């Protein structure tokens, strides 16, 4: 809790340094309505920031409690002459561009913020991910692995990233197994759509009972609930599997280990770090930066997944990356 904030804000340097000085590169991060330890994109972006910590770098974050505070929270950093500011989540897109226009020397990195050339500012770089590709790869894997030809996906609120994951997942699974049926549920909209793990668990339970054997949990805490439920069921890891989302959830959701074959990952940490490095050495460009997506490691399941499945999936991922396979 408080200690997280404590160590992070004073993390690299005991006394705050003067960010206007050229010797110090200051990086600020504003979270989406969510917390820095959300086991998902806020946390991953922050890890991406921390990767730069070292001599001459100062990092700090602010957690947003009310989405109407975005401009004010960004302003905290610009007032202190931070050199680069990472804003997380598409909801902050407009606030980021507005702030960028007011502070043309500050490099802004907008995670999950698609930059429209007509509206954006030159000092904003949108770090965006083709979630549909990640979903497709996950779906493809699921389609190959399912024994029942029934799989499920448990989502948070219906927003663009979840929609893209779902779409990719459905298409990917169909590509691997045309007979497959995919059960898909979105959480009812509302402030708890991404933290309602019991709901996610209930949905997973119902899907399993109706014959699904692979469940993709794609919606923050809500999706994690689904992963946990599969992990608890008898047959987890032998006949029932689950797939995580956004980051390698093997690291963040240990209770899912019994079933977690992989995660449909947006390489958030890498993407953030990469862009920040560019910002630091001045090579960063405005516009959109397409981050990498893919499947994370299989961890304990590495040995349990048939080799031919692995190669087919790798093949698909490669095609998705080089653009020869497009998720319609």
């Amino acid at each position, binding site marked *: 809790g408080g200690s997280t904030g404590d160590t992070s804000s004073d993390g690299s340097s005991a006394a705050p340094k003067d960010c206007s000085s050229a010797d110090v590169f200051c990086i600020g991060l504003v979270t989406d309505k969510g917390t820095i330890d959300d086991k998902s994109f806020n946390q991953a972006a922050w890890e991406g920031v921390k990767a730069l910590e070292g001599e001459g770098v100062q990092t700090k974050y602010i957690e947003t409690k009310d989405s109407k505070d975005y401009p004010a929270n960004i302003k905290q950093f610009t007032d202190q002459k931070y050199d680069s500011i990472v804003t997380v989540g598409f909801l902050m897109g407009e606030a980021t561009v507005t702030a960028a226009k007011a502070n043309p020397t500050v490099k802004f990195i907008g995670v999950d913020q698609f930059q429209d050339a007509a509206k954006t500012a030159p000092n904003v770089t949108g770090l965006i991910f083709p979630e549909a590709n990640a979903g497709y790869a996950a779906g493809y894997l699921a389609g190959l692995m399912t024994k029942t030809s029934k799989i499920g996906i448990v989502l948070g609120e219906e927003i663009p990233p979840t929609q893209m994951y779902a779409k990719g997942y459905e298409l990917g699974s169909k590509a691997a197994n045309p007979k497959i049926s995919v059960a898909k549920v*979105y959480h009812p909209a509302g402030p708890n759509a991404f933290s309602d793990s019991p709901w996610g668990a209930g949905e997973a339970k*119902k899907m399993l009972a109706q014959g699904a054997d692979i469940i993709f949990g794609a919606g923050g805490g809500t999706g994690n609930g689904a992963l946990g439920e599969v992990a608890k069921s008898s047959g987890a890891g032998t006949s029932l599997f689950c797939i995580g989302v956004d980051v390698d959830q093997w690291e963040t959701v240990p209770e899912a280990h019994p079933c977690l074959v992989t995660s449909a990952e947006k390489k958030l940490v890498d993407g953030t770090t990469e862009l920040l490095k560019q910002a630091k050495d001045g090579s960063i460009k405005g516009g959109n930066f397409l981050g990498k997506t893919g499947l994370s490691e299989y961890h304990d399941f590495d040995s349990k997944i048939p080799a031919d499945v692995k190669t087919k999936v790798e093949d698909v991922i490669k095609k998705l990356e080089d653009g020869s396979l497009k998720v319609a």
Partner: protein
Amino acid sequence: MEWFLRNKVWATTALLVLVAAYAFYFVNSNIAVSMFSYAWFLAVPLVLGAMVGVIGERSGVVNIGIEGQMLVGAFAAFFAAAATQSVIIGVIAGALSGIAMGAFLAFTTVKGQLDQIIAGVVINIVATGITSFYYESGKTIPRGLPNFDVPLLSKIPLIGPVFFSDGPIALFALVIALVLHVLLFKTRWGLRTRAVGEYPSAADTAGINVVGLRLFNVTVAGTLAGIAGTYLSMEATSTFERDMSAGRGFLALAILIFGAWRPMRALAAALFFGFMSASASQLQASNVVDIPQQFINLLPYVLTLVVLAAAAGRVRAPGAVGQPFVKGD
């Protein structure tokens, strides 16, 4: 028979529902069982929450802090279990935190005569605050509470797999609703509790310790809220998320009123709500109808209002709810 005549409407409805459920079961047992299980899975915390409300309000104390009590229960259970790696200690911690929250409500309102709604709001704010403040990510518990089959009962078609093959807290919720019904309407404690909540001065003049009984009831009811929270973090899932109670405490309040302040009816109301959610989920997942998921997801809320409006007739809250009892003075 006599009982049936006195409870015609309810008994008939219950019978019809049962018949319909089994008809559904014989048409497609797999879907039926999974939907009813889902309904019960979602209903468990609502039932426990509603029981917290039943005990409190029947004794004359409004509890709008159920949401916060649940959240703290979930938090305490999970982190105690994570710290000690013992599920048992987790459950105990969840229940104890519930007692603490119950005692807070009891002592501030019954002894300190704090406005009951304010006390509830304070609980809710503090709960979100501290569970978020002291939350630590990356903790795990060895495993959640396991499901088990109750001998014989779990063999009953439909009812068995739905109600008697779950975890201990789900079973507890079922039992507590029945037991509380009996306690409230058939025992000395129940008679006194109802008297204290309806017309405390009558209870007082009959030699009943109004303040003591209220303190006891509200404190003990807190345990149930703590257990409801434990269910969320240790039985339904094996994790704690910030705000994971997700409005269930407020829904439980609605269920309590829907259930006319009676345990069995609240159980029925929670099951109704759960089943509507199951229907919404089923419609969404199976993709049979092509309407936006938002509309499907509104089903439980809209139908609850429709049912309440159709079943007109005011149900009355316990008479003294919300009012502090000041002895003689």
